[in-house]
């Protein structure tokens, strides 16, 4: 694109366009902006308390696995083989 292709008044049009840009940039935040900042600040400075390890997925998964392992009865183990069933059967009189 050579400069000669540009109409002589294109500079004016360009300036006009930039003028529009300045005019449209007079946007303002919605009213009561400060109140919303305060609310956000309150949330940011006093977040809901949770121990740090809860926020780590690896710890949460490990905890879940341990609950499943320790909290379950031996039904699943019993179904897996006969030996454990015999071991857990009542002693003969």
């Amino acid at each position, binding site marked *: 694109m050579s400069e000669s292709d*540009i109409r002589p008044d294109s500079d004016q049009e360009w300036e006009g366009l930039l003028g529009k840009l300045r005019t*449209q940039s007079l946007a303002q935040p919605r009213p009561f*902006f400060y109140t919303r900042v305060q609310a956000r600040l309150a949330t940011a400075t006093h977040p809901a308390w949770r121990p740090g390890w809860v926020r780590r997925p690896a710890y949460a998964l490990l905890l879940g696995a341990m609950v499943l392992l320790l909290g379950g009865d031996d039904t699943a183990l019993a179904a897996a083989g006969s030996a454990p069933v015999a071991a857990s059967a009542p002693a003969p009189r």
Partner: protein
Amino acid sequence: MTCAIPLFSISESSACAEAVAPTIDADAELVAQLQRGSEAAFRTLVDRYQGRVYRTVYSLLRNPEEAEDVAQEVFVEVYQTIARFRGDAALSTWLYRLATSRALKNRRRAQAKKRFAYFTSLLGFGNEVLHEPPDHAHPLTLLEGREQFELLLAHIARLPDQQQVAFTLRHEQELSYEEIAAVLGTTVAAVESLLFRARQTLRKHVQPSFRHV
């Protein structure tokens, strides 16, 4: 000379970090009060700068909801970190710096999210419809020259980050070259170069519609 853009320690770049603000003494006093924990001072700060911060963020995001959200984040960060503000740069410079960096970060996050959503939709994860963000075109764009104006906005959004920040701070916030240099942590010459390249790119894309009117 290019300067790093640390948020608080810009003493090494004082030559390029002298944003001239008309209320620089008032701001220094405001910072002192803020550092003493004055809530009234924080309110004054928000009242004084909310428009400038919001408009700066808006000019980079073009979305009022996101702009409001990021502007709030800026003031929360100011409140939380004002104790570390050493006053090497003007308060307004620091605010513009926070506003532009947070806006760009927000935009990058949104773009990454959009790319991820597109990728997962291609792989067939989730069947939700991808909604395009709402178009918040300013009413001015509905007036004469709407197409050109929209074209200009679209191409501003595609400029490299530094060029876009320099261009919007100059042509929308009407900051001086020195102020822009302070915000970007660079030299006036570098700002001139950024603006030259930005204008050149924009005129190249918007100019054809001028030529064939």
